[in-house]
């Protein structure tokens, strides 16, 4: 555990120096999520005037609740997409030759990829998360069963996101051609996970595709806890599903790392870029 903690510290410093140390990063941490939130809000707000919308999607009939719905979506997306970005940055370690050095060291590979994702996540989301909490408080739109649900919300975002990041890092490390995931997991993830629209509005095939994304389950929990006032008991099914999905992601990451490293040791492709 002590070694793992040291690797977390080291990766956090590396992430800070490489990506988050610049003041301009505030554009991706806050300005960009705010702009996309505004775009979604002003695109969907006219729905409030649609006859019968209160029956079909009650939340859309209330502009403040609609904004809260979209803000939770943007918050969740910021969590998960920061890990896609982090994994993409990890691929640059091939070019710098440092990827081989990570694998030359005795550090546990899973700890390294989890620490890398965690370091990126914490440094990327804190600003928008603070902004979102401030917004919820200011507009008084949150309906929370009890204060402990804020911790549940945080964990429902953090744990699956870190598992997700570990998997992405594992895949992107071992295939120099896996950068297409970056494109695949941008707008499509936004769409399929129900960030902007409730998943019931999506066609069945897209709902099925979205169900394997941990962001989908996280948003169900976050919105249930923050917007509908549901407690742990009411969300137990969703939380259990999220825990199982996170475990599956981590186990897949372990398998990907093992297979990937074995393949790299056989083919020597770790040093190729």
């Amino acid at each position, binding site marked *: 555990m002590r070694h793992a903690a040291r690797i977390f510290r080291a990766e956090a410093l590396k992430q800070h120096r490489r990506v988050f140390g610049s003041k301009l990063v505030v554009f991706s941490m806050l300005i960009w999520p705010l702009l996309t939130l505004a775009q979604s809000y002003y695109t969907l707000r006219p729905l409030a005037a649609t006859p019968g919308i209160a029956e079909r999607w009650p939340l859309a009939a209330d502009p403040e609740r609609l904004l809260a719905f979209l803000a939770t979506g943007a918050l969740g997306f910021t969590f998960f997409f920061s890990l896609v970005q982090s994994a993409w940055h990890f691929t640059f370690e091939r070019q710098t030759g440092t990827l081989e050095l990570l694998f030359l060291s005795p550090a546990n590979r899973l700890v390294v990829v989890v620490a890398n994702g965690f370091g990126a996540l914490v440094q990327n989301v804190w600003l928008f998360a603070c902004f979102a909490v401030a917004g919820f408080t200011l507009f008084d739109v949150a309906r929370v069963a009890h204060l402990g649900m804020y911790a549940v919300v945080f964990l429902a975002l953090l744990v699956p996101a870190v598992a997700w990041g570990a998997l992405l890092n594992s895949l992107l490390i071992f295939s120099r051609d896996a950068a297409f995931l970056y494109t695949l997991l941008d707008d499509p993830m936004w769409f399929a996970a129900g960030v902007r629209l409730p998943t019931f509005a999506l066609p069945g095939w897209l709902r099925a595709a979205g169900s394997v994304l941990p962001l989908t389950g996280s948003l169900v929990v976050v919105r249930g806890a923050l917007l509908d006032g549901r407690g742990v008991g009411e969300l137990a099914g969703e939380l259990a599903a999220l825990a199982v999905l996170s475990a599956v992601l981590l186990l897949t990451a372990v398998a990907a790392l093992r297979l990937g490293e074995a393949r790299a*040791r056989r083919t020597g492709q770790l040093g190729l870029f």
Partner: protein
Amino acid sequence: MIETVHLRKEFGTKVAVHDLNLTVPLGRVTGLLGLNGAGKTTTIKILATLLRQTSGTVSVGGLDPVRQPRAVRRRINLIAGGERMVYARMTGRENLWYFGQLYDVPGRVLRPRVAELLDLVGLAEAADTRVERYSRGMAQRLSIARGLVNDPDYLLLDEPTLGLDAPIARDLRRVVAALAERGKGVLLTSHYLAEVEQLCAHVYVIGDGRHLAEGTPAELVAQSGCHRTVRVAVVELTPRVEAAARAFAPAVRIAPGGVVELSGPGDVAGALTSTIIEAGGALKGLEIAEPTLEDAILALNDRPAAVIA
């Protein structure tokens, strides 16, 4: 001791290392020489656990890199030439601290060690400057310090002085020699053969992944069949002088500028100059060149495998 027995590595249909037996004891700098593509880097990466051999066995201090890779990684480190392999946006000190965490070097040990290593590679004053501000040589020196951060028992050096200025390369050679004196086992590949001659007590020569020869640099020169070369410069190369020289030894070569060259065993300088003088030639200069390790490597590489075996 690092030991490989019948080491073989294939990449698809290409055999990069073929039946290589190698020993790297503690307390000695061992050289691994060969032309480009000979299999040196592949061998080093196998020893560093970055590659897995197709067949044969490897032992690093009694540990099996296939079965006990993490234990092996704690005892080795690899330094490759070039300024890559460090993080450009981190300072020199931060880079060493970062890798120290990966190697789980205790904090009370790491702090003084980082300072000591930065001093060792002449980067103490630039310790808190971002690496992106470093010159190529400075980044390379940091890479060397990085390779020592876990105080490895065995150090694998793959062209470590590539691109370094002469004084820095000389300092590095001193460091490498000192490491061996302190009991470390060092395996060195280098294209600077003078460096190998100076540092290595024992050298392996490989070509196309095969073992060609081994021994001290002097033994390799002897094994290669290379001989000293005598160069006699004459004021005017008349037909009579040339004929006399060729009569002395059919292997005589006439180089541009009227230089008579002859390579061969034994001391032929005196006899050749006497022959030229007797034929009416006037001497302008005389040079006796001993065969170098470079001559030996080239000669060994040119010889058919069957002859070497």
